[in-house]
């Protein structure tokens, strides 16, 4: 055991120096941050248009008035996101796996998966929302969903699944072939090899890019406003139309930021942890 270890004077002196250096770095970081913020603030508030901008975009009363509605709308965005995200994950992994099937009987499925990703990665999300949102009800199909909330989810899922499928596929491709060889040589079938050996490792690798796509999906839930559901952007629009003050937009923007920032930090954290593990392994 190491209980008999008493830090030597040399080690104590070293740690004192390290702490001093840490304090110096911290104060340097603080000073430079303060300077940048102050300069930016002065530059913006001193600009000739600032008083008007402040009045129309950063009006306290308008903020307080609109916030309850915008916040209520925002819950709808969160719901859109919470429903769409798991579906995107499952379907994306499914499409990626289908593209990896090699047996000839699966050719039609594989071709379909390729066609699907090619098409839906190419269509701008906003266009897809219009096409699904107004196109599907126009078909007047029996049992086809007609409410804008569901249609919005369908459009988002169609679009994001194609991106997420590609992320999964690159993760699967990044697993070294020797891992497959090892699994197959133990007698595991293709399916078992994917399930127990390849996919679990691939998922660990693609978590950061996946979270990135999710941040993007969170934002794009606002596009569903085009179909009419009273989500955050739509609520903000209503307030803006009434008061001709743009502060509700800023309120909505702040809410979106409040949702994506924690996710971005979480992504960084995971990436750092993965890098640390690779370095230490």
């Amino acid at each position: 055991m190491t209980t008999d270890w008493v830090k030597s004077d040399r080690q104590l002196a070293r740690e004192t120096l390290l702490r001093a250096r840490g304090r110096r770095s911290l104060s340097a970081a603080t000073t430079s941050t303060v300077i940048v913020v102050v300069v930016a603030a002065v530059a913006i508030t001193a600009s000739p248009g600032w008083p008007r901008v402040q009045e129309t975009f950063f009006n306290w009363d308008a903020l307080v008035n609109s916030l309850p509605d915008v916040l209520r709308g925002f819950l709808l965005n969160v719901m859109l996101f919470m429903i769409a995200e798991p579906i995107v994950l499952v379907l994306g992994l499914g499409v990626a796996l289908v593209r990896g099937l090699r047996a000839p009987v699966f050719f039609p499925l594989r071709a379909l998966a390729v066609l699907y990703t090619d098409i839906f990665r190419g269509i701008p999300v906003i266009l897809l929302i219009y096409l699904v949102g107004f196109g599907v009800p126009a078909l007047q199909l029996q049992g086809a969903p007609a409410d804008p909330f569901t249609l919005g989810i369908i459009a988002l899922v169609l679009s994001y699944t194609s991106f997420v499928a590609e992320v999964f596929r690159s993760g699967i491709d990044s697993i070294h072939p020797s891992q497959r060889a090892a699994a197959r040589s133990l007698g595991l079938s293709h399916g078992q090899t994917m399930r127990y050996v390849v996919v679990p490792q691939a998922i660990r690798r693609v978590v950061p890019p996946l979270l990135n796509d999710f941040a993007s999906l969170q934002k794009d839930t606002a596009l569903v406003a085009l179909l009419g559901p009273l989500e955050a952007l739509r609520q903000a629009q209503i307030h803006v139309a009434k008061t001709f003050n743009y502060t509700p937009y800023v309120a909505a923007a702040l809410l979106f930021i409040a949702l994506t920032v924690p996710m971005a930090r979480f992504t960084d954290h995971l990436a750092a942890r993965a890098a640390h593990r690779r370095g230490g392994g």
Partner: protein
Amino acid sequence: MALLTIDGVWKRYQDHSVLRGVDLTVSSHEVVCLIGASGSGKSTLLRCVNLLETVDDGAIHLDGQEITDVRADPDDIRKRIGIVFQAYNLFPHMTVLDNITLAPRKVHGVRRAEAESQARDILTRFGLADKAATYPDRLSGGQQQRVAIIRALATHPRLLLLDEVTSALDPTLVNEVLGIIRELKQTGMTMILATHEMTFARDIADTICFLDQGTLVEHGPPAQIFDAPQNPRTREFLYG
């Protein structure tokens, strides 16, 4: 009876014939060492036996069944053959115990409790009892390679293929891996080893096969191959 027979196996990569009509018979409990220069085709031959590569001509039989038959089920055949690679190829996202029990549980339908107790027994036998819950990246190279061998043994293969299992290891770690192989020979495991460890090959093999540019030039008991090689190419390889 012969456990494994290899008849006139050819393997080509593009225009390059890597194996040129190799014939080899391995009996039950026999230990065969493949020796030969780098690039002579040792790994390729082992990969063909394990169906990780498809042969371009010839046939391989295991227990009298032709495993190179295109109608044979490769998954079913691989269940009876274990292979260990130079680079270990352990699954990094699984503990040592899960690495070992994956195939018994998922391929052979052994219950988890039983698979784990068997795995623990064999880990104990090879001095790795305290590593069961460890992930591969926390093990030394020698420990990883021993786990890889145990993983291949856990499905009770009829035949074990070992491809230069010590050449990625520090010289001080080589012996712990060779020790396992010696033990396996004592239990009667049939093995084919590709190796550059000549002293070890001489010590453990029943038969030495010398491969040169895809041809099995000479084979026989170690004493004959090492002390009285007949073929000039063998002499050249061994004595330089």
